[in-house]
């Protein structure tokens, strides 16, 4: 196993009175998926948001390639994609436009690449429809298309399989496999099992306070 690329040491996070993260540590190496498990309210989402630098940890250290992420936060954030509970789609824009603006902030994407990414998640038929008319599962698929387009080494996924049908869940598994095969990393928080061969998955269990 290669050296850890994303490393968290003893992260503590308080939300008001609640001590949400109590000394969480993990190390994520290339080609590995870390499955963050735990009951509702155990701090899975908080951990993910802390790991991408949205939430500043009270104490502890988060490093990327051996350097504290605070040294070059924008550079670190440019190297990751985070997809929360709700895919960040504008209701008035179509799936295609949403992807174009979202990914376009990070890298140049050709219309052909956009089309094939949408094709891959079986979204071609409704890619011109405003996101407001899409079902929750369809929105989730647009987010999956964004994942494959972003071409970044680190994926942070919050409940990536919610709202997806069986075929969609298999797709999540296949996309993660591809990312790992490319040498990428995935940090996925879910209380379900990941649709993935267990060999490359490490588990991090968060317990309730």
């Amino acid at each position, binding site marked *: 196993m290669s050296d850890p*690329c994303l490393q968290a040491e003893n992260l503590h996070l308080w939300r008001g009175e609640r001590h949400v993260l109590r000394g969480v540590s993990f190390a994520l190496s*290339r*080609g590995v998926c870390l499955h963050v498990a735990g009951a509702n309210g155990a701090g899975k989402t908080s951990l993910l948001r802390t790991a*991408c*630098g*949205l*939430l*500043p940890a009270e104490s502890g250290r988060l490093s*990327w*390639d051996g350097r504290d992420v605070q040294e070059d936060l*924008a*550079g*670190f*954030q*440019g*190297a*990751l*994609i*985070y997809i*929360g509970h*709700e*895919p*960040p*789609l*504008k*209701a*008035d*824009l179509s799936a295609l*436009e949403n992807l174009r*603006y*979202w990914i*376009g*902030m*990070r*890298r*140049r994407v050709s219309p052909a690449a956009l089309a094939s990414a949408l094709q891959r998640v079986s979204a071609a038929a409704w890619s011109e429809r405003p996101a407001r008319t899409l079902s929750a599962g369809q929105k989730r698929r647009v987010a999956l298309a964004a994942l494959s387009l972003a*071409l*970044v*080494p680190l994926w942070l996924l919050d409940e990536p399989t919610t709202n997806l049908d069986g075929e969609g869940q298999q797709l999540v598994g296949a996309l993660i*496999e*591809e*990312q*790992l*095969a*490319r*040498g*990428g990393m995935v940090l996925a928080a879910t209380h379900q099992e990941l649709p993935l*061969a267990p*060999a*490359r998955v490490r588990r991090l269990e968060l317990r309730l306070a």
Partner: protein
Amino acid sequence: MPELQHAALGAPDAAVAGSAAPRAAVTLLAAARLVLQRDLTLAFRRRAQLVQPLAFFVIVTMLFPLAISPELARLREVAAGVLWVAALLASLLALEFLFRDDAHDGTLEQYVLSGQPLTALMFAKTAAHWLLTGLPLAVMAPLAALSLGAPPAALPGIVVSLVIGTIALSLIGSIGAALTLGIRRSGVLLALLTLPLSLPVLIFGARASELAILGDPIVAPLELLGALAVLGITLAPLASAAAVRISLE
């Protein structure tokens, strides 16, 4: 599956796994342009919302003749003040929408995580806001000014002062809008935060318009107004970026 994994691991895609994070290949300017373009596209999909601050501006200026007197000579004395108070309130009204939808649907989060300097993206958002509210207000102002008895010769001066002044107002407003993100029913608080900070703009802007109506040179207050706008351009996006980051914590 496992075979495929091992096979692929032998040749990791350097572009993706490269430890030096692939810096966004999109330039700052291109990213800011995308933000601007997205906001303008969205606004034109909801044209009805676009017209509301304008209609508000017109109806507020209309209140004064009804409340004071229909005599143009009397109205002319207060015309500059009325125009500016109405413009200030109209631009305040539109502020609530500046970040609200973006915060709600997760777009702001993606802006923060885009790897681009958030300050520049905030500036682009504020620019879009000004193009959609401030500029139309300045363009509408001559109609309102004429109805309040301003001479036609004063109109260019009024428009110029409003163009510069609304830039400053949008920038100051963006700070207030960012600070009140995540607060339910933030309208009154937003006004309480934004109005005291906007008073210098009101003072210099109204003075410039007043001098224009009197037919006097307006350079002095315009310069002060311009100074406020420049100060706003340099500092306001920093403050709103900081406030947006905090709102996502």
